[in-house]
């Protein structure tokens, strides 16, 4: 029961916020904060309850929902979903903190916000493919409204794009899981169930895996921002209000990656092996290409948007390794990018934007002198994003790279190395452009007035996210000890 509380609490929070009057935005934000904290607290309980690699807190029985179709309402979590539950909780809290002054229809905003979060928790907890798909769709709808109502420039366009891409992916996923439903067989014949625990007992014929795997993987990977289906991500991130772009980058992209791992790789091992190199190459393209495009952006938020695409490449690369170390790296990278991506979006989208009123790098003028505290926080966040030792990104990239070398070619490793270098390049160049140089367009302001210092909610949010990244960077075993046993179980079919 405990784990499912995350979903229930979020939906209750959504209802509560939705039914409060819009004028009471100061009370609403406390309700929202309480809801988010409660969700995180439940995930923490889940953290301490996990003992081995198996699914914990299994709730529901087989075929209790629509028995004729083998659909059940069954939830639980293991070491793979746990880091994602945690990161969802963290980002949810910080999203509220960074929207602290929101007063435009705050009641509806948080209603959609927590509906989205509830859906996300649901995906991570589902042990039934159909249920997973339902939650997956629940998560799509609020995104549309969050962007279309509270977004920035071209918000309707971006919202539309995001939803079209999401549904496009969903269509492939649906095809894939129906194929799994029909084709998974054990000794007694077809299983005809959507229940993950049942499905794991049987297997799909190798020839069928060859074509189901790309369907499923692609369907999920669209949401993970895989090249060349990544273009929804930067536009969506940029148009979205800060809290939403934090969720999009931090959590929603992970939904896709989680689906790839849990469903595509987990149920179709032979298909995965067949396509591994192909995924690896796409992952490298993601990393390098995202970095190059980020280098060329003028809008600060687009830089972060493309950096997300680049970082998700490491998740895909980890998935392509199909070994324990590489997959651990992929899951760690999901956590790490969840935290850092959200942090970067928060700083750029709220902390800097509310002060400068512009995100165009050409219009920023000497920020290092005018907002020194914020500038150094951003530099710290950027160092984390570059994967410097001491931050979580280093550990996850290390795991991924070692994993790559174990099962893929050394040349892919060199490609990834080049990608890391590129990440370094664009991050430093953009830091330079944003903070250290003079305004390039228009006249420089005559008086270089300092900007107001960070507010308390901003400080708290930054501390939480940066702290989480540092903690995992220094003590990675906090997560790896939980992730690895579960991956061992997931990887059992690969042994044969």
């Amino acid at each position: 029961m405990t784990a499912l509380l995350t979903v229930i609490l979020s939906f209750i929070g959504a209802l509560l916020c939705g039914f409060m009057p819009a004028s009471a935005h100061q009370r609403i934000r406390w309700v929202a904060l309480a809801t988010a904290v409660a969700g995180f607290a439940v995930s923490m309980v889940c953290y301490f309850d996990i003992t081995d690699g198996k699914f914990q807190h299994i709730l529901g029985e087989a075929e209790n929902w629509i028995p004729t179709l083998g659909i059940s309402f069954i939830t639980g979590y293991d070491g793979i979903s746990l880091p994602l539950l945690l990161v969802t909780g963290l980002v949810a809290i910080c999203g509220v903190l960074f929207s602290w002054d929101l007063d435009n229809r705050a009641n509806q905003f948080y209603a959609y916000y927590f509906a989205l979060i509830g859906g996300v928790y649901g995906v991570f907890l589902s042990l039934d493919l159909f249920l997973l798909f339902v939650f997956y769709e629940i998560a799509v709808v609020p995104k549309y409204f969050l962007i279309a109502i509270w977004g920035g420039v071209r918000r309707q366009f971006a919202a539309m794009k995001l939803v079209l891409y999401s549904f496009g992916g969903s269509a492939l996923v649906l095809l894939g899981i129906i194929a799994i439903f029909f084709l998974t067989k054990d000794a007694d014949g077809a299983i005809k169930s959507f229940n993950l625990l049942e499905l794991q007992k049987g297997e799909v014929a190798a020839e069928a895996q060859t074509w189901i795997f790309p369907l499923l993987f692609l369907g999920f990977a669209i949401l993970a921002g895989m090249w060349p289906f990544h273009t929804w991500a930067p536009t969506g991130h940029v148009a979205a209000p800060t809290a939403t772009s934090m969720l999009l980058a931090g959590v929603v992209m992970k939904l896709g990656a989680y689906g790839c791992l849990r469903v595509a790789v987990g149920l179709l091992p032979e298909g995965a092996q067949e396509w591994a190199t192909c995924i690896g190459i796409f992952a490298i393209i993601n990393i390098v290409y995202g970095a190059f495009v980020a280098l060329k952006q003028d809008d600060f938020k687009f830089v972060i948007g493309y950096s997300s695409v680049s970082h998700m490449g490491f998740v895909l690369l980890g998935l392509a390794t199909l070994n324990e170390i590489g997959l651990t790296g992929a899951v760690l990278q999901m956590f790490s990018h969840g935290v850092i991506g959200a942090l970067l979006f928060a700083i750029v989208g709220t902390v800097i934007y509310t002060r400068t009123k512009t995100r165009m790098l050409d219009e920023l003028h000497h920020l290092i002198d005018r907002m020194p505290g914020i500038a150094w926080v951003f530099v710290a966040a950027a160092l984390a994003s570059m994967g410097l030792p001491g931050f979580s990104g280093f550990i996850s990239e290390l795991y991924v790279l070692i994993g790559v070398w174990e099962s893929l070619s050394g040349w892919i490793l060199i490609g990834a190395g080049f990608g890391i270098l590129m990440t370094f390049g664009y991050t430093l160049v953009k830091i330079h452009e944003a903070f250290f140089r003079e305004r390039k367009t228009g006249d420089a302001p005559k008086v270089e007035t300092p900007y107001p210092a960070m507010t308390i909610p901003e400080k708290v949010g930054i501390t939480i996210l940066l702290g989480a990244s540092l903690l995992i960077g220094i003590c990675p075993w906090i997560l790896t000890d939980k992730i690895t046993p579960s991956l061992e179980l997931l990887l059992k079919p690969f042994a044969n």
Partner: protein
Amino acid sequence: MTTTTLALIPLLPLLAAAVTSLMRDGKRASIVAIAALLGSCLLSLIAFNEAWAMAANDAPKLFNVPWLELGKTKINFGFVLNPLTGAMAAMVTFVGSLIFIYSAGYMAQDKRMARFFCYLSLFASGMLGVVLANSLILFFMCWEIVGVASYLLISFWNHKPEAAAAGKKAFIVTRIGDIGFLIGILLAFKVSGTLDFYTKGGTGILEQNLTSHMAFGYQAATVISFLLFIGAVGKSGQLPLHVWLPDAMEGPTPVSALIHAATMVAAGVFLVARTYQLFDDGGTLPLVTWVGAITALVAAFIALGQYDLKRILAYSTVSQLGLMMVGIGVAGVSVGMFHLLTHAFFKALLFLGAGSIIHGCHEEQDIRKMGGLAKPMPFTTIAYLCGTAALVAFPFTSGFFSKDEILMGAWANDRGAFWIATLASLLTALYMTRQCMYVFRGTHRGEHAPHESPPIMTVPLLILSVFALGLGALVKNSLMEHLHPFKNPPTEHEMIVIVISVLVALGGIVLGFMIYRGQVLGQAADPLALKPFERKFWFDEIYEATVGQLWTLFIIISEQLNELLVFIRDLAVELASRIGNGFSIGGDRKLIDSLAFDGMCARLRCAGRTVTRPQNGFLPGYLRLIALGTVLLGALVLWTR
């Protein structure tokens, strides 16, 4: 020494960095930082003492702490204590402490002094981590911390656009090397199954024989050592990645002394020394020798053409680092490390002296605007001349002994490298004489009257001078004995090498005197500052034209590709909306609505209208119809009959 006390060496400065990051008062921050580093200096000296008691071929003392598990392998965070570690740690903390104290005077006027000491402490902690690390991964992590601290410190005066740009450049260029290093680490892990240098069971990377494995079609040891060397080239400013180091002089002078002369840039050489076994097994030592030799020569030429006081020293550092590489390449760890240690002292001295000169000349760095400083700045001048003597290897200074060992090794193993190193030494004497003539002789050419620096700055200078002069003779034998492995045990000293070495040093000085004695310095064209030297052999321009262009090309390609993808995406959305339009207008509105549903309705209405028209309540009409009906009925009756 226990694990804890050894761990305290890097942890004390780290703690100081954490504490000073929260402080605002610069003075108090400097006290905290200095106290912490003095503490680790004390511990390092104890460690040094213990390490020095070990015989050359003793197994090193290991202090491993498990960190995380990679699959079945445990990754340790650990420290190693052997003479190499001990000597390096003692040097870093000792020179570091002096520079810290000097900085307290140098930065006293700066508003952000507390931040400065925070970064300095962070740097010291990372550097000591590099020195002590017993695993490649810890080494690399600390190596990166050092890089970050260097970036922060170079761009410390970020109101200067050049400083911010230089920091960025330094970080990116060294990072190119780091990627090679990282891939090397991963390969080492793959091949050997461990990341520890040494393990208790004797299965560490340096204790295994990796020659039997293959990677990329070559022997693993060759590939690994080559990749590690790329990292060393980046960090130690060797050709072709040396371009960042002279630019890094934009940082405050104590930073140049500590990071870009004495410690961090030597980390690359230290890396080669630490993993010497791999280079030896892999047969990559000639590469090390030749990269070092060419770097030494090219940088010495460039130094001849520079006018910026600190840039001359920077190119001199690049050149000397090249010599250290030659030393390791031809004669082994002990020779390279000997020059590294002596160089740390005299180059730190020269930089701090330069800082004192710049401070005294009101932040002037152009040697053409100096001159005649010997009188107003006596202590600084004496100290600077001591440093110069050591750098040009004046007989019986510390630089003389260490350079002599390098030349000796080169003579025995690689004559080509020997002659290049000799030429580089001649140039060293030449450019240092040139610089001293510009700075100290003649009359002052600047605008403000120069003044001597306060004792907090001059005392460290004088202490360093003593070491610059005397250290070489003091430690030579002991060092050669303790640092292993020797490549070729030193043979009897060949007289010819010593003679050449002395001749070159003295000859360079005399030559410099002859050339610059009659010159009106600062006004006439400099006879030795030829165009290629002054323009640094156009390295920056060449990179801009090749790598820079390629880079831009890549960006443009990616951007265009992205435009294409965005276009396709928009096209897809457009198509979807067209199809939607088609369905909604053509399908729904025209076909289903107009034709089918609405059409049906319209026809119904039309039919209704037609049907209702006769029933208009007009009596004659009805009658007419009744009459018509009757006639028709009658006709029907008649016809059916």
